[in-house]
């Protein structure tokens, strides 16, 4: 090239996309190491501690799905809580009323949410940006109404109790620890699948949807297919989470799947770090475990929780991982500058 070519500029903080795709192995290692730690962590922790850990993982699965839909593909969904509810109810109804085994229920929950996600995704093709949020908000409330009103099927406000926990190779997972380990394995599998998805060209196409759908379309990226897929896969994760939630609590009623649950899941995505693969785990930790830890503050623990979240967002609006990412980038930039690669 001619002399005018500028000299190398330091590699810049490559933000969500670059950072995401650039540190994949770190994500992978963290997932595997995390699973190993979580496998042993609850030993001697008591049933309550184990229960909270398991609830955290189950919530994280739903957040992972929403992170795909919202954080990566930029589709604002306010229905993840409803999808979780659909999954939980499918598992509970098929399991308790028809005696179908958990694995089939799990698969059907994911599948049903995938299909519903596809259907619900169609408005996403027509309407842009925040309007999708409105449609999903309506959907979410409608689902809640159905769960509450159709008592013959869902048990209505009285819910469904005595939901059985799955067995694995003939081993029962009724105990807190056994079920926890079961959930660790399922979470790991789902997280790895998502990890693979995001680093594949599909993941890049999802990012393109978020960043600039107009340009994406002109590059042959099938906006319709990818929008629907992002929405449906994210929803399926909601269904999977629900299928684990039902046997975890062994009882379900409509309250945990109301609109406010979807808001809470949204909060977890953003607070953890929207678009970062490990963000959902941090976000879910924040929303599930933090209130439990804060109980020592007494009756005001929810206020303290709100203040912590608010401060967190003020300090790092891009979420916990966003903050880490920025810190890392500036370290790197300083290193390169010190390296003398800039004149």
């Amino acid at each position, binding site marked *: 090239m001619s002399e005018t070519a500028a000299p190398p500029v330091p590699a810049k903080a490559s933000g969500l996309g670059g950072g995401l795709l650039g540190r994949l192995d770190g994500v992978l290692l963290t997932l595997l190491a995390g699973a190993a730690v979580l496998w042993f962590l609850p030993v001697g922790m008591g049933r309550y501690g184990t229960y909270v850990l398991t609830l955290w993982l189950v919530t994280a699965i739903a957040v992972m799905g929403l992170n795909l839909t919202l954080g990566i593909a930029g589709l604002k969904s306010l229905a993840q809580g409803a999808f979780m509810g659909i999954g939980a109810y499918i598992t509970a109804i098929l399991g308790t009323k028809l005696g179908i085994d958990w694995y089939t229920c799990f698969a059907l929950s994911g599948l049903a949410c995938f299909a519903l996600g596809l259907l619900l995704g169609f408005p996403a093709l027509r309407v842009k940006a925040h309007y999708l949020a409105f449609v999903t908000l309506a959907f979410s409330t409608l689902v809640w109404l159905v769960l509450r009103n159709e008592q013959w099927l869902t048990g209505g406000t009285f819910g469904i109790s005595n939901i059985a926990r799955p067995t694995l190779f003939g081993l029962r997972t009724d105990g807190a620890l056994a079920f926890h380990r079961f959930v660790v394995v399922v979470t790991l599998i789902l997280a790895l699948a998502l990890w693979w998805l995001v680093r594949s060209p599909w993941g890049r196409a999802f990012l393109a949807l978020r960043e600039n759908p107009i340009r994406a379309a002109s590059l*042959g990226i099938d906006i319709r297919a990818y929008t629907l897929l992002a929405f449906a896969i994210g929803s399926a994760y909601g269904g999977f989470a629900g299928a684990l939630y039902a046997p975890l609590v062994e009882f379900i009623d409509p309250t945990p799947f109301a609109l406010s649950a979807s808001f809470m899941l949204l909060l977890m995505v953003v607070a953890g770090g929207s678009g970062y693969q490990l963000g959902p785990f941090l976000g879910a930790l924040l929303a599930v475990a933090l209130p439990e830890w804060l109980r020592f503050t007494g009756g005001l623990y929810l206020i303290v929780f709100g203040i912590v979240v608010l401060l967190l967002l003020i300090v790092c609006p891009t979420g916990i991982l966003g903050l880490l990412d920025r810190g890392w980038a500036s370290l790197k930039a300083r290193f390169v500058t010190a390296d003398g690669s800039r004149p």
Partner: protein
Amino acid sequence: MTRPVLEVSGLAKHFGGVVAVDGVSFTVNEGEILGIIGPNGCGKSTLFNCILGQLTPSAGTVRLDGTDVTGATPEAMNRRGVSRTFQLLQVFPELSVRENLILAGQEHRGSMVSRLFGPGDAGLTNEADRMAEVFRLGHLTRAKAGGLSYGQQKLLDAAMAFMAGPRLVLLDEPAGGVNLTMLADLKERLRVMNAEHGATFVVIEHNMDFVMSLCTRVIVMVEGKVLMSGTPAEVRADPAVLDAYLGH
């Protein structure tokens, strides 16, 4: 070799009462480099948007290789081998230059399913880096596209249009904000693609040096209609064009 690649006939676009494009017809033959010029707001960009599916035309037809593609989606047009650039900056701002370029090529590799299970970069990293080099963005492959200077983003936009090895490229003011030296490179690049790969180009541009030295034929639009069409020399000499567009 005058096989028509793109045939536009009677194309029109209305926005409420505004007639932006008003019955435009023209044909682009294989291997041509067609220039489109005309005053601001004469409907050039709208014409592109109608051809490529960003907008639905109010009337008229668009044919690609003899097939009617009127109203086809932008994705479909691109998968038929038609690329474009945009007048206003259109990159993926949070993604790196390399990711931008890989995105521009990946949908042309394999099927949807094979892409999911194939390599993460669809095997395009090297090609992307080479393309960045060609457009003098080689030192910026890992920089966020949104942080590039205006001209660099313009070049990136053009580079993206070439990633898929297109047969037909529609460029909307590719020269705006690009340094003259780089512009010469760009021009050279178009010529090479045209001569060696038989790619066809349609270029909207206000930079007369660029248009006149590059294009084989030029269409002049005024108020949504085609005023005239001819060789660069003919266009330059036409008093109506001078009056409406070039000035004296």
